[in-house]
């Protein structure tokens, strides 16, 4: 079985955080302890939505050392493929679900003298567990958190109450913007910056840090890409000897799984590289959406990341 090891859990609490975000608490069904994790880790939640099984990654926001329960926050995306809508509308307290062991693609660099966290919107979630880890280790940290407005600022009150000097909040509605260049320029040697938020914010932070001479090694980012819907297409899986149809609302990876093909994966968001698949033959155009492959690999037509990327054309044959 691909992916990280699975854990059977029960949903023990659902809390509406604001108009768009709900928090879910999971506890082990067998009453045992959950594994500890490291700040920034995510879990992949299995959602059985009728005939469709969705596996969506969500950052763990609870204390990494708390083995009694995991919590995640899910932002409702009315335009998405339905994973967040399923969590919001179809999951109730007492439901049995399956989640994966924690996987961390956004861990703290413990060599850092200071951690600078930059969050945009729901991108706050990995920092919630990282802040708890920093507090436990006595690490220096600072958070700059941009959200649309006070009503949609998830966990703003908790953060500013508990950490009045470390947590800084910016509301788009009030035209408040992170003074990024000053902020980065003022950081002492040994600072690492971490950014999680919309693509534009990640690009902005990476470009500004590079311009100011920050080493690449001290800039960390996480962006989960949700697979986007697209035109249905047909794929030939050479190793499995199957021809499958990828539907409008499912990813290539999900279509392979639905057809009983055990394809490797980890993050399901175009980041980790685990699902990288060799293309044997194709006639048509790739729609690459991952940020794992390099530009020349995207152009080569030799590889695809089935978790987020699609294809339009006549023939696609994969080494799977």
């Amino acid at each position: 079985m691909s992916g990280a090891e699975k854990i059977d859990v029960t949903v023990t609490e659902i809390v509406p955080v604001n108009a768009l975000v709900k928090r879910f608490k999971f506890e082990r069904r067998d009453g045992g302890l959950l594994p500890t994790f490291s700040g920034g880790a995510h879990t992949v939640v299995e959602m059985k939505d009728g005939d469709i099984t969705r596996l969506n990654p969500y950052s763990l926001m609870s204390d990494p050392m708390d083995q009694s329960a995991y919590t995640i926050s899910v932002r409702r995306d009315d335009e998405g493929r339905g994973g967040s809508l399923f969590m919001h509308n179809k999951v109730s307290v007492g439901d049995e679900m399956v989640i994966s062991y924690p996987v961390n693609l956004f861990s703290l660099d413990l060599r850092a003298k200071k951690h600078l966290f930059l969050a945009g919107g729901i991108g706050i979630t990995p920092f919630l567990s990282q802040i708890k880890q920093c507090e436990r280790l006595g690490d220096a940290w600072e958070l700059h958190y941009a959200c649309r407005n006070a009503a949609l600022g998830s966990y703003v009150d908790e953060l500013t109450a508990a950490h009045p000097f470390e947590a800084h909040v910016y509301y788009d509605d009030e035209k408040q913007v992170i003074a990024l260049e000053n902020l980065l320029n003022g950081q002492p040697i040994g600072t690492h910056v971490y950014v999680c938020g919309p693509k534009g914010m990640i690009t902005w932070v990476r470009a500004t840090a590079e311009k100011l001479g920050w080493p690449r090694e001290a800039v960390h980012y996480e962006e989960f890409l949700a697979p986007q819907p697209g035109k249905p297409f047909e794929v030939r899986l050479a190793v499995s000897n199957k021809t499958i149809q990828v539907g409008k609302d499912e990813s290539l990876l999900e279509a392979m799984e639905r057809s009983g093909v055990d394809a490797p994966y980890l993050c399901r968001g175009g980041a980790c590289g685990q699902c990288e698949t060799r293309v044997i033959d194709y006639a048509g155009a790739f729609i690459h959406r991952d940020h794992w492959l390099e530009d020349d690999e995207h152009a080569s037509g030799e590889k695809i990341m089935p978790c987020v990327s699609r294809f339009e054309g006549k023939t696609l044959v994969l080494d799977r």
Partner: protein
Amino acid sequence: MSKFEFPKSILSRPVWGTLEPRRGLHHLMIADAEGAEAILDVATPEMMESAHIIFIPKGTDYAKRLRALNPAQFYDGPSYAASVTRIQRVLLGAKMSTQVYLSGTESLMGQAMLECTNAGIPHTAIQTEHRGSTARRMQCVHCKGFTEDVAIDPFVCSHCGLNLFVRDHYSRRYAAYQGVCVDAEDPGNVPPSKGIYP
């Protein structure tokens, strides 16, 4: 000619690069002896406006030429030991937009890199370029003493007097190559010393 092509060796052995100008708001340059040549090669007037050069001449006369680059700050130190407190003080107040350039002997680059990594700069983000002497800073694995400027192999530990074989095994934490007793099994049976590099 101050450049030297080090022979390929084990993974532990540091690999030095070639300095190139990088974007940054501050440029910290630390060099000894012929290392000055690498700074002279990479320096631009724009970079010098925010450059701090810490130079240990070791008997060379490059200081005048470096000073003529007109860096924002220039320090001419009598030895590495005399300069290290200044390096530490500069790093203490340095910002993330600082680029570090190290050039000269392996001993200088290794020790300055240790200060930089202790300050929290990822070692892969520090630029280096070897110039000048290929003599090494050696640590005796037996008494832990350091012997500077070792050019021959085997050599006598300046602390405990053991005959030491010069290894390519390098310690980033000590900024030194490791020297191991060459005649432990058969005391007195010491091969004649020759240069470390053929």
